[in-house]
């Protein structure tokens, strides 16, 4: 069953990675659209209403993609991970079902109103619709993160004599401390994607010499919100997430940092390639003591390396965990630098004329996607070899009745279908951007 297991993993990894390209934008944009709509209602400025309509169109396309690629996710727990579902369904089924019942109904009802109901609802009603869409998408995010957080750090469960894991405390599951921090970290990531995309499209307009007023609005809002989100992403959310991993998932931390040997003065590897055969880091560029400090707030502190643990408990893709983590942190640091510098220029009133800055903002558009994806790979591949950390191994979670051949068949099917979807998405979003927010409204008398 070795081959089937690998394919089941790839199947989930592929479909969930592709899926999450869309929600990270919609969750970020939901906040930004809500902010713009609030400004529009408070100032009565038609400029902001047109901005809202423009972004709502892009939101709508992205949301549709998120929905159609999200439906297969909920079904794959049962189709490809039947044993996992059987054993833990009493726990994670709760949060997944709550997502359907609390968020999807809300989002699907109010999205239509946000997109098409402005005339019939009036301005206040439309503002309310934008708030409900924001609420729905962010609640949806929480319930999914809470599901994953339970797999990372299982709490509030009891194990029946037949091995089935049941729920012991509802609030324990919902208020899992891991979920709270992971959610904060994840949502900052989504806001980063949203604000970078908004700033990038604004920069595109400014650099192309069209839709100047909208370009300025988009860049200003993207940079302002982006600055806050990039900083929160590092501290406190990323920092706390890291310390939770150090405390509860020491093997994951060791793989992320490429720490093969335990050390009381553990360094951080800024660069280097893990050499799995020889259990060492090649070409390392180290900051001494830094890992001990980040973990314990103290320059001396024993950080356990992979050598402390039996190899059967190591993540089976150490290099992948290491690189994803380093890509995430590296990009996150660059994002902070870009946003701080852009914000300074914005405050000095020079950003809109500074073409190099606008070029950087425009070209940085894809990188938040990479950083978010890398972060999730760190979390999920880092959790291996466990499906539920410390409770259920990944190899014990797959569907016993689904063969490798059938799994490969549907994996290929999804790859083909998603390629078409991806092309369609880019094409339709490109058309919306090309069309633009429309002419500037006539000044109000």
């Amino acid at each position, binding site marked *: 069953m070795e081959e089937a297991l690998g394919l089941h993993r790839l199947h989930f990894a592929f479909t969930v990675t592709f899926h999450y390209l869309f929600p990270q934008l919609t969750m970020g944009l939901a906040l930004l659209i809500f902010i713009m709509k609030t400004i529009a209602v408070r100032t009565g400025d038609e400029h902001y209403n047109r901005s809202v309509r423009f972004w709502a169109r892009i939101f709508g396309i992205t949301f549709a993609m998120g929905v159609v690629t999200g439906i297969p996710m909920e*079904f794959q727990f049962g189709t490809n991970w039947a044993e996992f579902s059987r054993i833990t369904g*009493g726990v994670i089924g709760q949060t997944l079902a709550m997502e359907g019942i609390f968020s999807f109904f809300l989002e699907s009802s109010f999205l239509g*109103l946000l997109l098409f109901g402005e005339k019939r609802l009036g301005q206040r009603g439309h503002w309310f619709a934008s708030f409900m869409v924001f609420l729905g998408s962010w609640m949806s995010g929480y319930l999914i993160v809470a599901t994953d957080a339970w797999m990372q750090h299982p709490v509030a469960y009891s194990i029946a004599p037949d091995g089935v894991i049941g729920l012991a405390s509802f609030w324990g599951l919902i208020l899992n401390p891991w979920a709270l921090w992971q959610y904060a970290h994840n949502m900052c990531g989504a806001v980063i994607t949203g604000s970078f995309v908004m700033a990038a499209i604004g920069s595109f307009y400014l650099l192309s010499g069209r839709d100047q007023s909208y370009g300025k609005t988009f860049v200003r809002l993207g940079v302002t919100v982006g600055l806050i989100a990039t900083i929160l992403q590092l501290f406190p959310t990323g920092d706390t997430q890291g310390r939770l991993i150090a405390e509860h998932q020491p093997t994951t931390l060791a793989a992320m940092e490429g720490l093969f040997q335990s050390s009381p003065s553990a360094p951080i590897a800024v660069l280097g390639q893990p050499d799995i055969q020889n259990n060492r880091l090649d070409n390392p560029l180290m900051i001494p003591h830094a890992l001990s400090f980040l973990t314990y707030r103290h320059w001396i502190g024993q950080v356990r390396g992979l050598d402390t643990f039996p190899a059967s408990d190591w993540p089976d893709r150490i290099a992948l965990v290491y690189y994803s983590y380093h890509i995430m942190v590296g990009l996150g640091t660059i994002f902070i630098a870009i946003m701080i510098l852009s914000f300074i220029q914005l405050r000095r009133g020079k950003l809109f004329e500074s073409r190099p800055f606008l070029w950087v903002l425009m070209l940085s558009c894809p990188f938040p996607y990479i950083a978010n994806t890398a972060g999730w790979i760190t979390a999920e591949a880092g959790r291996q070899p466990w499906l539920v950390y410390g409770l259920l191994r990944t190899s014990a979670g797959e569907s016993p009745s689904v063969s490798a051949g059938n799994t490969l068949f549907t994996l290929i099917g999804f790859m083909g279908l998603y390629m078409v979807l991806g092309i369609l998405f880019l094409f339709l979003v490109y058309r919306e951007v090309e069309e633009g927010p429309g002419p500037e409204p006539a000044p109000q008398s």
Partner: protein
Amino acid sequence: METIWFCLVAVMIAIYVVLDGFDLGAGIIHLGVARTDAERRAVLAAIGPVWDGNEVWLLAAGGTLFFAYPLLYASAFSGFYLPLMIVLWLLVLRGISIEFRSHIESPIWHPFWDAVFFLSSALLAIFFGAALGNVVRGVPLNSSGYFFEPLWTDFTLGPSPGILDWYTILVGVASYLALTQHGALWIAHKTIGAVRDRARHIARGAWVGVVLFTVIITWATFRIQPRVPESFAQRPWGYIFPALALAGLVGVRWFLRRQDYDRTAFFASCAYLLGMLTSVVFGVYPDVLPASTDPSYSLTIFNAKASDYGLRIGLVWWLIGMLLAAGYFTFLYRHVAGKVGTENES
């Protein structure tokens, strides 16, 4: 507690079938009822604001099934692996054909998505029917509660059945016809003029097929699944479910004869679908997935359920969530009430 959740999941699935049933049906008939581009847009406008919300019922029902009956979810979803994946692909294609059609004005773009919309809707109707047929017929469960069915084997009900055999294909066709009728009645209710006339015409034709296939599958079900006649014999009050279906069927014909009763005819069709579905779940209860191998391997509401604590706490948030959802839906359907014109008015 397990019976309550059995009823709740059944209700959610029934709501899904009644709601998404009409937009699937609209997809099946739209090439026939709507000839011009403006008419096609009218059909899409009749389902555009609500199809996404309708489909959420499938997700919500799936999620509820997951936490209330983890073993059933695990066993059925992995056993029906191939048809489920195909259903997912069809749902994806159908979703984007509705959402993306209007984005580009082109004589190539529109017919392409119209065809995708028809094909995916039609195949989904057949697959959903076949899935129901599989549940009634029973599946080859082993002692640990798992099975796997290929798409088809030899089309008989032998020891290694496929998803498609003569019985499940019959149910699939019945489902196709019933949803055609259902969708046509919705479109008749939501539109005016030529589109409405054609939709009524299709509904009348489909009705004849629905009657015929209802008789055939009822006869076949009583023959192949002895559990069903047993259930009705043991608990005769259950005859209200087939009676509801029968009343719905008569009602569709009765109200279609008159002008201006499209909405009532649509509700009669809802009653028919509800009656058929509830008859099925009543017939197999307390099984949720009967075994065709050894009856003792059957998954029942007792051996497939989650812990009592989880089911109790779930009842609290489920009720709160459903009240909220009912609120949104009332708001939304009131907002989109009335006929759609042949021109888009957004």
